[in-house]
């Protein structure tokens, strides 16, 4: 005589719940990471604007705009804003990295800088923006994996 298992489904739901919790924690960590890197880049640009860059024609104003936009995005992403805020942060970070590269090569709106000057702000800012791009790319790819292809 064989007995019918009555409690066979109790284990899988527990695994599913813990997996979902882990995913949520992971997404929260990525979101906080994006917010932090955006804010770091914004604060550095604000610092540079206040400490001399305000006097550079065109680029000085660009530093002010970058600082205020990145800080705003950082706050809103941390507050749990929609996905497009993170994507905007990623796109703008790519733009900031391109602007950095231009300023070290052919110049950008009549402004060039040399190497990793001003140190350490330039290196920190580039690292923060690169990390933003990586984290945003990660969220986009994760989202595509979760969305079934029809």
């Amino acid at each position: 005589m064989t007995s019918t298992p009555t409690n066979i489904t109790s284990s899988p739901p527990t695994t599913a719940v813990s997996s979902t919790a882990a995913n949520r924690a992971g997404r929260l960590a990525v979101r906080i990471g994006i917010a932090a890197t955006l804010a770091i880049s914004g604060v550095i640009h604000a610092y540079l604007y206040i400490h001399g860059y305000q006097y550079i024609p065109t680029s000085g104003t660009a530093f002010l705009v970058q600082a205020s936009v990145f800080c705003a995005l950082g706050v809103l992403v941390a507050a749990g804003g929609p996905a497009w805020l993170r994507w905007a942060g990623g796109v703008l970070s790519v733009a900031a990295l391109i602007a950095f590269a231009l300023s070290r090569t052919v110049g950008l709106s009549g402004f060039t800088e040399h190497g990793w000057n001003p140190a350490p702000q330039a290196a920190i800012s580039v690292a923060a923006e690169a990390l933003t791009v990586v984290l945003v790319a990660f969220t986009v790819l994760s989202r595509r994996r979760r969305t079934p292809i029809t």
Partner: protein
Amino acid sequence: MSSGRDPQGMTRRQLMVHSAWFGAAVVLTVAGGEVISHVAGSAGAAQTQARPTLRFAQISDSHIGFTGTANTSVTGTFTEAINQVNGLGFTPDFVIHTGDLTHLSKPAQFDQVKQMLTGLNTAHIFTVPGEHDSVDDGGQKYRQAFGAGTRGDGWYSFDIAGVHVIGLVNTLSFSKMGAGHLGTDQLDFIEKDVAPLSSDTPVIVFSHFPLFAMYPAWGWGTDDATQALSYLRRFSSVTCLNGHVHQLFTKTEGNITFHTATTTAYPLPHPGDGPAPKPVTLPAGKLHDALGIREVSYIKGQQTLALKEQKLS
């Protein structure tokens, strides 16, 4: 009655939520910009109230004697520049003209520009020569007009309000690419001139050609500037102001910042726009936007000079 839901898109509620986030982004951006501007402005205002240690104006490339469609009255625009300096609201400690005072180094042109400069309301006027000021005589007529108290071929230095100022001549000989050249004598002068200074002395350097390689293909640089700058790298604040390129450009290299100035005569193309830097004729009414003057302030203890560019009004 409409349900308010588009099956292909978002609900009205979702649209409102996204709009709210977008609005919050705009508001936060504007507010953040205001706060940063206010902080930057407060620092500047506090410094202004304390009266800047040094305030001067820079004008450049007046090209008195130029005739062409790019500017049919260089004397007119130069007069406007002088009037604008006089209308700054304060008396500058000095005014620096960073070269190409004349267009062809004619005696009459030197006489005219010297006469016009007397209209500046300032205690001191300093100049450095441009290549147009030494067309056929190695700068002899320039030095007769403006070389009093200078050394060598017209270079000099002085101290004012705790700031060390150096005026260089890099337009008397050129590299194969047409870049400016300082020469051994002047490099020796710079080395000895700054040797006794402490490293926290702010240094300002005037020259006509840029002391950085802005666009070597057009000779927009100084071939032996690296040597000169090596004597200046130990200073915490070095600001190099030049003319020649007729447009604003800024470059930073550690503690050394280069600022090219615009002109009071006519614009030149941006680097690489066209085969050569020929005067650009702008559409009617646009010329004044390309011309201007520069106001420079220095506050004791600050690492950077405060520059304010003004278009010719």
